[in-house]
């Protein structure tokens, strides 16, 4: 089975990190902190999230082999999980991750984990690490997605001023739509592969 393209993996990871949707939470967390300090904190949190992603990337490669889970299962599972993540973005529930944020300067929790690298992102990375045989593409995709998230959050105050809260919401929903499309595509590919095994 051919691997996934670098672009498609990076886009999926970026969409799951959902930096656009996290802008509001990020700005709330960073209230009363000077811009210079903000950049520093953001950099640190991104680095922590990146480390977590790398860890799960390597973990993913071995754990599924160890458990003897077939690639078809991984593919279909990743489709289903992506779909559920996208549904959460499209139809947000009142008691999500963003509803009760702790006060004070963020350190690891809640910005690095779970807002940037949440359980769904780490699970997806594990699944993708199993599907994608090329180490380079996985690493490249993680780097690209993390850097894009970094840039988006760095520019968060300007983005919010420029697009307004409604603009951000629309953009987030659009991202959710793209994620739904990719999820269904992944799922269909899994089915296709499954049919070929007969």
């Amino acid at each position, binding site marked *: 089975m051919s691997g996934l393209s670098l672009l498609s993996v990076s886009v999926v990871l970026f969409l799951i990190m959902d930096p656009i949707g996290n802008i509001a939470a990020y700005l709330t967390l960073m209230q009363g902190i000077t811009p210079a300090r903000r950049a520093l904190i953001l950099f640190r949190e991104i680095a922590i999230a990146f480390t977590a992603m790398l860890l799960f990337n390597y973990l993913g490669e071995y754990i599924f082999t160890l458990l003897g889970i077939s690639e078809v299962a991984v593919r279909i599972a990743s489709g289903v999980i992506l779909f559920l993540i996208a549904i959460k973005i499209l*139809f947000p529930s009142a008691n999500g991750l963003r509803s009760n944020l702790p006060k004070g300067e963020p350190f690891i929790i809640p910005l690095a984990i779970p807002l940037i690298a949440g359980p769904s992102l780490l699970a997806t990375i594990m699944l993708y690490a199993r599907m994608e045989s090329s180490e380079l593409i996985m690493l490249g995709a993680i780097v690209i997605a993390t850097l894009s998230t970094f840039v988006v959050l760095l520019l968060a105050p300007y983005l919010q001023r420029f697009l307004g809260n409604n603009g951000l919401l629309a953009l987030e929903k659009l991202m959710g739509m793209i994620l739904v499309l990719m999820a269904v595509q992944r799922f*269909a590919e899994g089915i296709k592969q499954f049919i070929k095994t007969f």
Partner: protein
Amino acid sequence: MLSLALTFFLVANPIGNSPAMIALVKDCEFSRQKIILLREAIFALLLALFFQYFGEFFLDGLSIKDYAVMASGGLLLFIVALGMIFVNRSSEDSVASTRKEPFFVPIATPIISGPGLLAIIMLKSRLENNNIKITMAILLAWVGVIAVLTTAPYLQKFLGKRGLVALEQIMGLILALMSIDMIVNGTSLFIKSLHS
């Protein structure tokens, strides 16, 4: 161009879908409803124009096939329809304003700019080299769509409050049918793609 515009208008089907849209926005105030529908129409327009110019590039880049577009539109619509049929009464009574107004999903897409419309737009822009003509046709179609949507809220004056509640569930049923139709179409496209 007129016939193109008419096709787009008919596929977007604002008249047939307006009861469903009213049912979705029924908890908001009347003046707000018009604003919401206008906003959703503009979102749908932007989406349609985006797909006219970048649709193929975008879908190819992420290796998304047409069956996935079809099926995901259906799946989203089905979730919305389920929410309309099985309304959670108890939560509605306790906090009246908890039901949020719809934003982008589901009215702009997949109800107005659904997978069917986007697929047709992409198909036409592939056949027709004159991009301006298609854009004009889309804009022309949207004059009609916006006109229908902004007058749609008046419909509820006839229906009254009880009528609206009934309407919501009936429309939920119809949306569920439409969504399953999309899923079935997507599946048949998928099965065809297996043979080729």
